[in-house]
């Protein structure tokens, strides 16, 4: 089976690793480009959110490279992402591609369905269940290692001596990771990558500001969708902390009753699970305020339903907590200058608020 999957951030390394180790052939969707987006926009509904369009375009490119089956995740709503798989399949079929989309819904909600689908791939590959679970665990280790690398890069980039050094080191680290075979290799690649990033020459300075990034998971994680906002902020000398990682770093490293705590934090502003990461994002923003961050950038795809609710309540959060939030709604435009200007202005204002900036453009 030639299997492909949605491309999101650096996670494709781990998915490809899992599929290849299982004995199938992973067709990694080509790096996302303007062509991907154009293909997606052409065939997707006009008001579908941007991740839907990007993923559709990326499926089409993967099909060109020989993929014949697509694996993706499902969901139970009310965010539209839970319905992507079904609609993607119908659209691809209406375009004449004989392709199957296998949607994995939550293992807790539909365990039977989940295992039936998993079994299909396991049997075709001829591996035992223990081996299958071992490989899942191994891929998960890789997801965690990749996220660890990315997190360190956010810390290093604002202090780097020459612009771009961190990004180069990170790319190199990903390449090393892609070569890894076993779990031992993964851990070694992780250590090597971390050492590479730590070896980036630094200027002896502190971060200018600390900004939290919250928002819809896909545009948060995929640099192509968010115009590489992490790098833009890093180059401005800003340390940014991202609220959501695929490995759920935030979840594992905070209090035990994580979900309940988030609900409590958000309840004065949003008192109901609204799907996606809507409620969580309000809570993350409040948490960043409590941790002494200077501001929050809120990323969302154009017409994203839960994030529009979040965007509507953020002005109240800003007023009541005196905490600046910049809403960035991402659409099919790929020009970076607009976002760059907005970020620079936002950073200037935050620095001004902190007394770190004087008129005339001098940072102190």
């Amino acid at each position, binding site marked *: 089976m030639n299997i492909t999957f949605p491309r999101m951030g650096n996670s494709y390394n781990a998915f490809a690793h899992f599929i290849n180790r299982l004995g199938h052939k992973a067709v990694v969707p080509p790096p996302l480009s303007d062509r991907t987006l154009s293909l997606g926009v052409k065939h997707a509904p006009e008001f579908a959110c941007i991740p839907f369009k990007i993923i559709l375009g990326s499926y089409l490119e993967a099909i060109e490279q020989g993929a014949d089956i697509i694996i993706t995740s499902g969901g139970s709503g009310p965010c539209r992402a839970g*319905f992507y798989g079904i609609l993607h399949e119908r659209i691809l079929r209406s375009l004449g591609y004989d392709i199957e989309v296998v949607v994995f819904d939550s293992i807790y909600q539909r365990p039977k369905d989940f295992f039936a689908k998993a079994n299909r791939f396991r049997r075709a590959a001829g591996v035992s269940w223990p081996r299958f679970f071992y490989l899942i665990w191994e891929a998960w280790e890789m997801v965690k290692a990749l996220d660890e690398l990315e997190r360190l890069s956010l810390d290093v980039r604002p202090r780097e001596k020459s612009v771009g050094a961190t990004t180069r080191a990170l790319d190199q680290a990903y390449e090393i990771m892609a070569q890894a075979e076993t779990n031992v290799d993964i851990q070694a690649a992780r250590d090597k990558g971390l050492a590479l990033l730590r070896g980036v020459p630094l200027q002896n300075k502190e971060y200018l500001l600390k900004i939290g990034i919250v928002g819809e998971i896909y545009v948060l994680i995929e640099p192509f969708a968010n115009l590489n906002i992490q790098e833009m902020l890093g180059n401005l000398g800003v340390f940014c902390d991202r609220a959501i990682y695929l490995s759920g770093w935030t979840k594992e490293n905070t209090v035990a009753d994580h979900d309940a705590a988030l609900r409590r934090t958000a309840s004065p*502003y949003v008192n109901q699970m609204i799907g996606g990461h809507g409620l969580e994002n309000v809570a993350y923003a409040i948490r960043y305020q409590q941790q002494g961050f200077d501001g929050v950038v809120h990323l969302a795809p154009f017409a994203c339903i839960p994030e529009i609710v979040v965007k509507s309540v953020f002005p109240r959060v800003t007023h009541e907590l005196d905490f600046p939030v910049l809403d960035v709604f991402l659409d099919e435009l790929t020009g970076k200058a607009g976002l760059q200007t907005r970020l620079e202005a936002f950073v200037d204002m935050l620095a001004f608020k902190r007394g770190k900036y004087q008129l005339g453009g001098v940072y102190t």
Partner: protein
Amino acid sequence: MRVGIPQTLTYFEFYPLYCTFFRELGFEVVTSGETTKPVMDQGILYTVTDSCIPIKLMHGHVAELAKTCDAIFVPRFVRITGEEFETFCPKFLGLPDMLNASIPKLPLLISPKVDLYRWPRLGLLKLAQAVGDQLGKKGLGVYRALVKALRVQTEFRRLVSQGLLPPEAIAVVNKYWQEGDSLVSPVEAEMVRPEAKIRGVEAHPITLGVVGFPYTLYDNFINSSLLNKLCSLGVKTYTPEMVSPAKLAEQAKGLPKPMFWYFSNRVYRAARYLLVNKKIDGLIHVTAFGCGPDAMADKLIELEAKQHGFPFMSLCIDEHTGEAGLNTRLEAFVDMLQLRKGEQSEHNLSAHGQFV
């Protein structure tokens, strides 16, 4: 005390219930009236730009009511069916929060959480209790009001199932409240009203399925009187409210798993029912600008129409108030259908998405 009920979103589905309940509790009930340009402009003022048009209208209606009312009833709709994952759109779920954050000087917002998935009857009782508590009403009176409200609601549903459009059925209910008539007798009288009669007549050249949310189909301002226009073009229309719930439920098999949104499921299933049973000559899907669930439902319905070989038009309604564009599209669509139908034997006009 005066309780305001916005005349949009769930108004077209549950107004008789709301109205009766609050009246029985001894409150004065007012609605925000039909949508007008100032109402829409206010809504646009209070919402974020990328919000969908129905939510903008809702904000406008609530702002309108805020001027005159002591309390506004905006329930937080979560689940009202037995489907675990059939909730409402996230914007319905977060509606009270959005209103609270956006509109200054709001009066008391009565926004109980409506989640009737597990225990529908008990849930209703608790809901009535919660609303009663918030308004300082206690005891049996609340339950009595609920029972009466449910009875009027059932009566309203019956009127709708007989072919009255929801606004017409609501008019009957209002008349009942004003003149103290019984709810049953005016029904038959209403049935022979001219508009209702036109829809009942068989000899229409064209029959169209017009599917969409109740708050887009029956709000004559926002859709520029779409249904009346079709009526004057001699078109007989079927809307999702005219398909019985049992028939709708049957159509759930069209999807491997249902969509997550109550109204969208109904729209999709109604469309599928009309297509499968070939009751129509063509299908119009009325979508709202910026509506998330519609983006998915519209494509599904389009593919469904294509598969069944029916002409399909997607009509997106937005903040524009010019009617010429809409008129032209409707007339052209109806003309094409007539041509297509007139030369059924050897017609050369293709259905949606096919080349001749």
